[in-house]
């Protein structure tokens, strides 16, 4: 069985933004709170006419171009989103299949997951490809929350930005993926939900969930990998807010190697991890620990290990 892993990530972040400094008075917060706690000076906003499919296609086309990818060789494509088009019927990945011009035998499907979606998606695509002896797969994340934000709600309207990412998985990967850890605290499933078409969030419940569960999840990943946090070069966490990233880094003792980089676009849900990974220099990184957490309330964590044999066996990438 081939060992499927991650090769590359392409990102589409819309250039239009919403400026959180313009909301200070309305929401009774100061610049220091925005900068040092929320952490998002600006929130990326797709054009209202752009759809989840449109932003997905932009990220995928970038990935294809960057990697000179032959679209006839793509075996599968999976879209992670809880804001698909047409209420999910047809599944948005089928429309994307048509727009990208993938071959008939390329299988596509949507997966409904939030902020844990990228890591869970990596595991799903990896397992699926390995089981069916596939060589090239694409994992897409696109969850433009601007479609569901209540603009009068301080708790959510200063947090979320729009973006899409596309990740290339292959049998000749740059990064090996292993030691996954998953979980769901379903008693808190209402901490993030939709009511009357708009997002409702219990910030305290999500904070408590993340602060308690994520350090334990990462500890389990380290245990399975027989490593300590000191042996990890980089820790990538879902960019829920600067406050949660800083709090978790303190709890897992990874300060100084846990970047927060979403200042100019916001919490982009399942796109936040691939975006920060694509923006962080990883040449000197051998081991990267990552965790996504949110809607569900669910988490997914894993270890990325640089594949020292990348490029040795030619032919796929």
């Amino acid at each position: 069985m081939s060992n499927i892993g991650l090769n590359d990530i392409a990102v589409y972040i819309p250039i239009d933004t919403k400026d959180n400094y313009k909301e200070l008075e309305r929401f009774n917060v100061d610049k220091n709170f925005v900068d040092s706690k929320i952490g998002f000076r600006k929130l990326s906003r797709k054009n209202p006419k752009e759809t989840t499919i449109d932003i997905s296609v932009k990220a995928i086309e970038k990935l294809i171009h960057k990697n000179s990818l032959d679209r006839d060789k793509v075996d599968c494509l999976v879209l992670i989103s809880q804001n698909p088009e047409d209420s999910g019927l047809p599944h948005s990945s089928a429309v994307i299949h048509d727009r990208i011009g993938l071959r008939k035998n390329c299988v596509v499907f949507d997966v409904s997951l939030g902020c844990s979606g990228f890591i869970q998606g990596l595991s799903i695509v990896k397992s699926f490809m390995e089981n069916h002896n596939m060589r090239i797969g694409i994992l897409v994340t696109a969850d433009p929350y601007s479609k569901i934000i209540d603009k009068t709600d301080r708790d959510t309207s200063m947090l979320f930005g729009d973006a899409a990412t596309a990740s290339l998985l292959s049998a000749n990967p740059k990064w090996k993926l292993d030691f996954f850890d998953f979980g769901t605290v379903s008693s808190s499933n209402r901490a993030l939900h939709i009511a009357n078409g708009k997002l409702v969030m219990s910030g305290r419940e999500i904070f408590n969930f993340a602060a308690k569960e994520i350090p334990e999840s990462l500890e389990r990943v380290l245990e399975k990998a027989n490593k300590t946090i000191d042996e990890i070069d980089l820790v990538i966490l879902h960019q829920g807010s600067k406050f949660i990233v800083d709090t978790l880094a303190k709890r897992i003792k990874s300060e100084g190697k846990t970047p927060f980089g979403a200042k100019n676009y916001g919490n982009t849900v399942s796109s936040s991890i691939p975006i920060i990974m694509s923006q962080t220099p990883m040449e000197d990184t051998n081991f990267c620990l990552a965790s996504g957490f949110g809607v569900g309330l669910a988490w997914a964590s894993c270890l990325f290990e640089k594949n020292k044999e990348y490029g040795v066996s030619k032919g796929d990438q």
Partner: protein
Amino acid sequence: MELAKVTSKDIREILERVVVGIDIELLNDDELFSEFGIDSLDYMNFLLAIEERYNVKIPDEDLDDCNSISKLLNFLKK
């Protein structure tokens, strides 16, 4: 630790550890945390630290009973 024995000093130690950059000597026991300048996110983090330290649950509906050191001490002793 028995909750009846928790002191203002214990609470102050937790607050100082969790909230960066405060001068805990300037906080009165009866002063609201919000009036002292502690924001909503630091307050959440502080409450979690209290819950973990004393193995208690502070429900959302009781938050107004925990928004100063003296009120929090009373809540813990209930």
